[in-house]
């Protein structure tokens, strides 16, 4: 659920965006702690053999971890679009279908790059063992 800002200007920004289709997210929040358990292996380098549970991260680390996990969720959706376009090529290869696949694929690739950048950002915020 969205927590409204006490600052009315921020809220009015939301209403302008709403003119173009913005809707406040009304569903359940993700299970960030559960997802973090599956993904924290990305950070357990030699100089950081253990990573804290999501709940034990600082507020800013949690925010960076959520960005990293959201990037992954976006990549998952774009991966599905790419798979759909790939399956469509089995109906017959032609320029239109090849270009459709290319666009879906590039979007998926960009999302994986974004996931990687978010990982790097979070990585820079997590403590390491000093040599």
């Amino acid at each position: 659920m969205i927590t409204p800002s006490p600052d009315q200007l921020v809220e009015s920004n939301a209403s302008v965006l709403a003119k173009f289709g913005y809707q406040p997210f009304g569903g359940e929040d993700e299970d960030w702690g559960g997802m973090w358990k599956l993904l924290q292996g990305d950070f357990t380098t030699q100089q950081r053999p253990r990573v804290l549970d999501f709940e034990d991260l600082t507020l800013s680390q949690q925010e960076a971890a959520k960005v990293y996990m959201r990037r992954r969720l976006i990549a998952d959706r774009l991966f599905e679009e790419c798979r759909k376009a790939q399956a469509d090529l089995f109906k017959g290869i032609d320029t239109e279908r090849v270009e459709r696949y290319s666009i879906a694929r590039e979007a998926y690739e960009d999302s994986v790059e974004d996931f990687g950048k978010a990982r790097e950002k979070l990585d820079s915020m997590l403590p390491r063992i000093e040599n």
Partner: protein
Amino acid sequence: MKWKTYDKGDVLPEDYKKALLNLMSFQGDSEYAGAQRVAENHRFAPRPEEAYRLSKKVMEEMGHAYYVWNLMQDLGVDVNIRLQELARNPTNPDPKKVNIINGFRKENWSPFFECWEDVALFSTVVTPAAVAFLGQYRECSYLPWARTNVRVHKEEHGHLAFGVWASKRCIEFGGEKTREFMQERIPKFMKMGLGFYGRPSAGQTKSQMFDIYYEYGIKVKKPEELQAEYMELLESRLGDIGFEVPQGVEADYDMRMGYEAAESGATIETA
């Protein structure tokens, strides 16, 4: 040296078309089969980002196949049967239907891969050979294929970056012991990389088909030139990671991208 060039819609001399389609089919079919092999290696991915980056690579290699097949279709080839064959028989496609380089046949590929470090090293050590080899097609005499390979070449460069990234990550997670483990495994991939271009363009063991391709401007660089390009790329990549370039490694020509019409088994029927 300048060659007569052809663009989309031009009438191609029959012998030229036959040679061109042979090389194009090797590229298209092998890109797809290569993507399938990379997909099989997905099981080795040790961490989330590695898994996502490899899945991206699979999709990209498949995309290269579609580009090339689409061009072959313009030349009257039914390419859908090639996709169907590879999808139905990924581990043993019929050599009468598709042209796969030896290295991308499952029985040849699989023994090279035992762990994620091998996956990282393949992209570091063998991919520079593909970058150099396929790079020559950007200047080939069939202009639609040349343009497509400009696109492919740019993306293959991304795969080089993947290899370096993945190798560095292996070391970041595994330390010096992993670096030594990987250093010992470089020669097996380097043999493949060195043999990628086929045998030298002169001498008793020279490729029978090379002169024909070269005369037509379909291949525009000699194996020796490509090998020099490969070594330059390889040395810079290995140095970037902190590996040494192994000395005295001999090329394995049996794993090469054959790309020779005489050895092509697949029939390429055109309308």
